[in-house]
């Protein structure tokens, strides 16, 4: 059994990416990984808070790190936005003494101290490097039989780094997909941006980015896309209809969390994995290869 402090983030805990949280927890159990949810965690602040009030954003993020320090376990999150904010806060508190002094003072106002001993990890890193591909492959109960999956990393899981994988041509998700029996298709835009939250304020711009991604995946014959980020999943899945309308395209690409694919291969049922929450249904594509 391996133990981690778990930071689900707003979206995966009870938001639009609830299926990510559900499948994460189910897969962790199947792999003997104990995710202990950080009690009373607060929103990481994501990009918006950093862009409005940087100090407040570092302080709110540091509260989570300070709370996690008690247990001394690595802090793992499935959300790329939470990951980039928490790990950036963590490293900047080490690198910039003046920032540290201010954050320490703010934390003290809440009766907290942070000694910078925590490691922030993304769930993909934990599965790929702590559990390992061989161990995961050995637990596969339903081989995904060559299902063609475009491995979509997005930006913030590998950048700005230094991270567990290459910032522009990462491989860990490709290998993970393959050890489930599926096929990772070539995907030149695998680490390009989906537009993130700009889908709300700059929809036209973001729809253009999403279109390029869908185009790259489908022209490489992917039958579905696997993502490691709630925002990427939302943009590619929920807004796929808008892309089709705007650009007169006819994409029908299911977008799954990588944990949903893992769960299927590990023998977990579709309901527990929240498969029915996909807007672009994955049922037809998956039914070709496995019983859901």
């Amino acid at each position, binding site marked *: 059994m391996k133990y981690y402090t778990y930071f689900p983030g*707003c*979206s995966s805990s*009870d938001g*639009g990416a*609830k*299926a990510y949280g559900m499948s994460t927890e189910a897969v962790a159990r199947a792999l003997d990984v104990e995710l202990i949810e950080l009690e*009373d965690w*607060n*929103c990481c*602040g*994501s*990009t*918006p*808070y*950093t*862009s*409005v*009030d*940087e*100090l*407040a954003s*570092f*302080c*709110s993020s540091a*509260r989570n790190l300070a709370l996690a320090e008690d247990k001394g376990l690595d802090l793992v999150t499935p959300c790329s936005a939470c990951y*980039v904010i928490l790990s950036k806060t963590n490293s*900047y508190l080490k*690198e*910039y003494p003046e*920032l540290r002094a*201010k*954050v320490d*003072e*703010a*934390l*003290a*106002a*809440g009766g*907290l101290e942070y000694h910078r001993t925590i490691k922030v990890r993304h769930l993909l890193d934990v599965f790929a490097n702590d559990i390992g591909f061989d161990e995961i492959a050995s637990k596969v109960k339903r081989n995904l039989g060559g299902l063609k999956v475009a491995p979509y990393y997005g*930006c*913030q899981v590998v*950048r*700005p*780094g230094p991270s567990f994988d290459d*910032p522009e041509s990462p491989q860990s998700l490709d290998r993970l997909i393959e050890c489930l029996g599926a096929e990772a298709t070539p995907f030149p835009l695998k680490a*390009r*941006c989906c537009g*993130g*939250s*700009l889908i709300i*304020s*700059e929809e036209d*711009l973001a729809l253009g*980015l999403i279109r390029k991604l869908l185009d790259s995946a489908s022209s490489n014959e992917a039958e579905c896309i696997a993502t490691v980020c709630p925002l990427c999943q939302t943009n590619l899945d*929920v807004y796929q209809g808008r892309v089709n309308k705007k650009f007169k395209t006819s994409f029908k690409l299911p977008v799954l969390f990588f944990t949903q694919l893992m769960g299927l291969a590990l023998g977990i049922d579709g309901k527990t994995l*929240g498969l*029915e*929450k*996909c*807007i672009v249904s994955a049922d037809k594509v998956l039914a070709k290869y496995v019983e859901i």
Partner: protein
Amino acid sequence: MEATKAQVTGTLVGEISRIPGGERIRLCIQCGTCSASCPNANRMDHTPRKLIAMARAGMREEVLSSNSMWLCASCYLCTVRCPREIKITDIMHALECLSVRENVSSARTLTPTMYRSFSDFVYSIGSVPEPSFMILFYLLTNPLRAMRMIPMAFSLLTHGRMSIKARRLKPEAERQFKAILDKAEELGGI
């Protein structure tokens, strides 16, 4: 008054270089790798390369009132490619914060209002309930646009992807969180 303000705050480039992540701005060689890597540069008033040049030339108002940094999606591609190891994404965030503080944010993009709506939820309850955040954003910008969102909201609801109830921290945790943020506010920025 303006001159006094400039004397107090110093030059724009000086301010940025004192912000964590902004310290290498003076090392920019204007190669344009950032602009070539940016997925959204074509929609910006000024590309990232040009924005840095303008900041260094002291064009404070033009820089802070431009839409450029508000179109940055924080994908960090410029940052990992910069041959001078300048953290351009961090500089974008710093410019956003300065433009908010000085109340000169571009009116041609809705991103400042969107970020503000999001941050208001973080500050008040420590979490972001997506439906409430979206409703606040549309009320502040264009309530009519919200109409277009109704079919999407309905689809999210029927797929079990929309929780009406916000996640709340325990009262003592919420108080602690507020105390930390209020202290941060008192410390007057980064």
